[in-house]
């Protein structure tokens, strides 16, 4: 089922891509754009030209074939849905790269291919090779992607736009700019890492731990092609300079040669194909480095040809692995007898890889030779190129021959992991058949088959520079043909000479097999991410909280003061005149309370908490005084809830009295002095800054906008509330989500809460109460606790409906008067809280059933769906709407959708607050249960 779905998706994409062809011929471009973050020049811009079209067809077409193939390849034990979802995600990202019309968007899709390829390579995550290979691929391509982003940002800066069309049109501007070289180097780093070019080639062979369909798709047809795609795409903007030629040429030629040489000595079928891929990509890079129009034609043609024959070869290797259980060429031989059709197909495909005439590989290779012979600039690279090309050609003949000869001919294989290999199911072979037929058609009649499509692609890259070229098999008896013949003969001789050595040798070429890029990479990885990190941690790290906080505070202080000091900040002289005496008196108390809290928090927790509450009240009065009624209400309510919360927590803290602590050491004294100094300095700094800020004339900022538009656009008179639920509704949605997450975290943490052993016993106060009950004959245990504050608790119970009404009132008036969802929610949760306080947890829960999780869920849904609702009327998320509704008897009332949003806020605040408090209150019930269980256990022992 998942495989069929994936095939339908990929096939559908293929059909769509093919149908788009008439719109891209003759250099036409199909565009689609959605604004994303236009301020940053980042738009979701898609752009389909001939070259992108060619890649789209390649990606979707081979993607479709691979999904068909994978259906038979994957075993029943594999989690197949995951495979196909990763696969399609990768395909989407890859299509994104080729279709992006904005270079930042391109870089985003680039990263997505790195990540999805990581997931695909590590698909069999039980195998260490898969994990290591995936990590290496991600590290290399991820670093490359980062470099690419830097390069693209530089180019965007030079051009002044991230639009691909503009960038491609301003090649001269870019090449003439002083930032050209850094931009070029970063872009090339991105492309070369992705296309596994020397010296970053080593990740590709390690990525062969992926399932074979992944290798066939990612590591032959698509992902590694992204690098050369990028080079070709940007060649109008970047190519043609000496730097371009030199960097790309050196990387390409070395990769071409090294890849082909290494491929000869691989023992793993997929390893051989991987190195061959590296070599062919080197060929394309070399072609692109030349910068001549004909070379670009050859490069684009070879991208197409290589994808066709390499994908089919990978799939053939997968079939061989599937049927015999091994990919080791030392064990495989004589398979022609068992699977003649697959063998024939593989032979044709590898002949195409070797560049045998009448196959597509021959054509583009011939074009490469022709370009290699032409001298473009007088440098050593150019002069050696024809020889290097012929040598690499000979190598590729040798490894292709080896692949065919070792696997399909010779004696029958003995002791294979699976007995008697046979032909695979027909549909597993079908993709290979199709691709090989394409190889043949293109190879025999290029101008009639692939010609027009190739031309469309070439025109879209080169535009007016499109050269005259002819796609035909016979160009006369010329130098490239001689080079091809030499390569064929030399390759065959090389294989014959090496045959016996290769049949038994170790994996990798002699001598060089010890020197592996992979080793160096791992060494660096260990050095940087383990040793250096450990060293840094030992030197400057600490696990103690206090030094960390001290540094945070100190850094904060410096970061706050340094800019002020540098900009010549002069503290204003304090003006004490005109101070309201009552306000001064209020804060005199506040300051005393603050110092008292700081002093008492260690040994007298309850006193400190009460004093803290006192400060909270003074803050609340300050808000009233200074025209912030909404804040005052919220502060007051939060103060109540916080105090109850901490009171509930106090019971689980250890007893601490002044007598219990040992004498203070000198070091501790020093520490305290230092902290005190830091604290005082921070306080003084804050005083100066606050005074400066408050006495500054307030600039004409956004405040007036809100004040002027709150009523006309938000339909409310209480501007603070309108800001919260309307203008900045998205922020509020985020904030209530945070509140919900915190409440759930608290709930989750408390489910597994186990108190410390010394908090398990009954608290001292309860023991005293119970002793009193026991001593008096007319009292039962628990009576004192129940009778305690009897009258207040009755009042609290009676107040329940009153407070609920009050909450509704605060909520309803919130849009026009102080109040709103936050304060109403807190009020209602206090109503519930009082019932718990008055009657105890058990009493309250017998009578009211609160489902805080439901409140939270419905609240969040209400708020979010109000936002989504705006979409249905064609407005952006969370656009509010308001009008006056006539209600009988009451008259016209304002009704805004913001009210619905505020209702969501209200519900979520109630749910979260109640959930937190109830979860904490429940601990004393749980502890009783724990105590009973342990007591029973003790009795059993």
């Amino acid at each position, binding site marked *: 089922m998942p495989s069929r779905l994936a095939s339908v998706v990929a096939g559908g994409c293929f059909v769509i891509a093919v149908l788009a062809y008439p719109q891209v011929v003759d250099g036409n471009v199909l565009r689609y754009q959605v604004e994303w973050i236009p301020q940053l020049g980042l738009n979701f811009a898609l752009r389909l030209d001939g070259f992108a079209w060619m890649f789209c067809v390649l990606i979707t077409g081979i993607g479709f074939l691979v999904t068909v193939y994978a259906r038979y390849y994957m075993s029943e034990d594999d989690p197949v849905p995951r495979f196909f979802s990763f696969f399609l995600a990768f395909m989407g990202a890859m299509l994104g790269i080729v279709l992006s019309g904005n270079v930042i968007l391109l870089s985003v899709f680039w990263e997505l291919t790195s990540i999805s390829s990581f997931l695909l390579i590590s698909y069999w995550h039980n195998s260490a090779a898969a994990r290591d290979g995936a990590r290496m691929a991600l590290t290399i391509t991820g670093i490359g992607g980062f470099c690419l982003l830097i390069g693209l940002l530089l180019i965007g800066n030079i051009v002044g736009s991230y639009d691909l069309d503009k960038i491609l049109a301003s090649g001269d501007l870019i090449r003439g700019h002083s930032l050209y070289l850094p931009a070029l180097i970063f872009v090339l780093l991105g492309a070369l890492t992705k296309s596994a070019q020397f010296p970053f080639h080593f990740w590709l062979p390690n990525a062969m731990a992926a399932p074979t369909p992944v290798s066939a798709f990612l590591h032959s047809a698509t992902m590694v092609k992204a690098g050369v795609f990028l080079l070709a795409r940007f060649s109008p903007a970047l190519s043609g300079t000496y730097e371009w030629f030199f960097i790309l040429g050196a990387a390409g030629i070395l990769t071409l040669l090294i890849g082909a040489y290494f491929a000869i000595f691989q023992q793993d079928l997929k390893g051989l194909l991987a190195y061959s891929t590296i070599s062919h990509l080197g060929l394309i890079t070399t072609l692109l480095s030349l910068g001549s129009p004909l070379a670009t034609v050859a490069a684009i043609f070879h991208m197409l040809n290589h994808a066709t024959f390499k994908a089919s070869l990978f799939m053939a290797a997968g079939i061989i692995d599937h049927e015999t259980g091994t990919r080791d060429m030392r064990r495989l031989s004589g398979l022609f007898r068992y699977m003649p059709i697959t063998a024939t197909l593989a032979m044709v495909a590898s002949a195409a890889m070797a560049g045998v005439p009448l196959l597509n590989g021959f054509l583009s290779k011939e074009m490469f030779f022709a370009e290699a012979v032409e001298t473009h600039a007088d440098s050593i690279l150019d002069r050696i190129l024809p020889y290097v090309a012929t040598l690499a050609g000979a190598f590729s003949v040798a490894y292709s021959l080896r692949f065919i000869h070792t696997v399909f001919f010779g004696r029958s294989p003995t002791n294979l992991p699976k007995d008697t290999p046979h032909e695979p199911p027909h549909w597993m072979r079908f993709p290979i058949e199709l691709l090989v037929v394409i190889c043949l058609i293109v190879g025999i009649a290029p101008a009639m088959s692939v010609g027009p499509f190739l031309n469309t692609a070439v025109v879209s890259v080169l535009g007016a520079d499109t050269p005259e070229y002819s796609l035909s098999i016979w160009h006369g008896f010329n130098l490239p043909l001689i080079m091809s013949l030499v390569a064929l003969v030399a390759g065959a001789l090389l294989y014959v000479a090496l045959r016996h050595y290769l049949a038994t040798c170790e994996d990798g070429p002699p001598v060089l097999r010890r020197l592996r890029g992979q080793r160096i990479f791992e060494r660096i990885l260990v050095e940087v991410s383990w040793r250096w990190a450990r060293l840094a941690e030992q030197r400057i790290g600490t696990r103690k909280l206090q030094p960390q906080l001290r540094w945070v505070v100190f850094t904060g202080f410096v970061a706050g003061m340094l800019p002020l000091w540098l900009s010549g900040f002069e503290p204003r002289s304090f003006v004490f005149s005109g101070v309201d005496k009552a306000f*001064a008196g209020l804060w005199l108390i506040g300051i005393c309370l603050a110092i008292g809290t700081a002093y008492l928090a260690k040994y007298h927790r309850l006193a400190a908490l009460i004093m803290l509450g006192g400060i909270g009240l003074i803050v609340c009065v300050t808000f009233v005084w200074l025209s912030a009624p909404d804040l005052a209400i919220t502060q007051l309510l939060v103060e109540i809830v916080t105090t109850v919360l901490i009171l509930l927590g106090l019971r689980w803290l250890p007893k601490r009295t002044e007598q219990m602590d040992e004498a203070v050491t000198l070091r501790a004294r020093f520490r305290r002095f230092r902290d005190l100094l830091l604290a005082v300095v921070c306080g003084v700094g804050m005083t100066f800054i606050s005074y400066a800020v408050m006495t500054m004339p307030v600039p004409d900022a956004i405040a007036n906008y809100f004040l002027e538009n709150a009523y006309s656009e938000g339909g409310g008179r209480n501007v603070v509330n309108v800001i919260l639920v309307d203008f900045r509704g998205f922020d509020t949605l985020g904030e209530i989500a945070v509140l919900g997450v915190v409440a759930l975290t608290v709930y989750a943490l408390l489910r597994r809460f186990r108190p410390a052993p010394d908090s398990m016993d009954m608290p001292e106060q309860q023991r005293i109460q119970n002793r009193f009950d026991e001593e008096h004959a007319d009292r039962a245990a628990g009576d004192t606790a129940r009778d305690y504050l009897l009258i207040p608790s009755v009042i609290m119970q009676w107040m329940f409906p009153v407070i609920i009404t009050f909450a509704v009132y605060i909520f309803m008036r919130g849009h026009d008067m102080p109040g709103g969802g936050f304060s109403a929610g807190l009020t209602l949760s206090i109503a519930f809280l009082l019932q718990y306080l008055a009657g105890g947890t058990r009493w309250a829960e017998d009578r009211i059933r609160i489902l805080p999780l439901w409140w939270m869920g419905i609240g969040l849904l209400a708020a979010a769906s109000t936002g989504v609702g705006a979409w249905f009327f064609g407005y952006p998320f969370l656009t509010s709407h308001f009008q006056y509704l006539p209600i009988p008897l009451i008259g016209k009332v304002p009704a805004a959708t913001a009210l619905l949003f505020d209702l969501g806020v209200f519900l979520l605040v109630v749910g979260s607050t109640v959930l937190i408090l109830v979860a904490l209150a429940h601990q004393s019930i749980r502890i009783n249960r724990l105590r009973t269980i342990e007591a029973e256990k003790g009795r059993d022992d």
Partner: protein
Amino acid sequence: MEIILSIAIGVMTSCGVWLILRPRTYQVIIGLSMLSYAVNLFIFGVGGVKTNVPPILSDDAVASRLADPVPQALVLTAIVIGFATTALFLVVLLASRGLTGTDHVDGRGEKR
């Protein structure tokens, strides 16, 4: 007015900083609450200190003379989120005390 508020903010910052540098978790939680008062008042003060002009529109009020509603809106959510973080920290504190047996911020030190 400004001078009183500034001194109050300074004192509360000092007490808060002193408390969060102490070794006992309870001191840290009280210190954080104190710091949040100071920070809230500071942000609130940025909008200017005005009396008797709450940002509530009425027919006879001149919009541009009202108190700045933006810092108020910011502080309002900050107060609620402050409650949430206090709750979270309290629970972490209790869990740490239950697991390690001590109320030292590092979960180490003498067992009590």
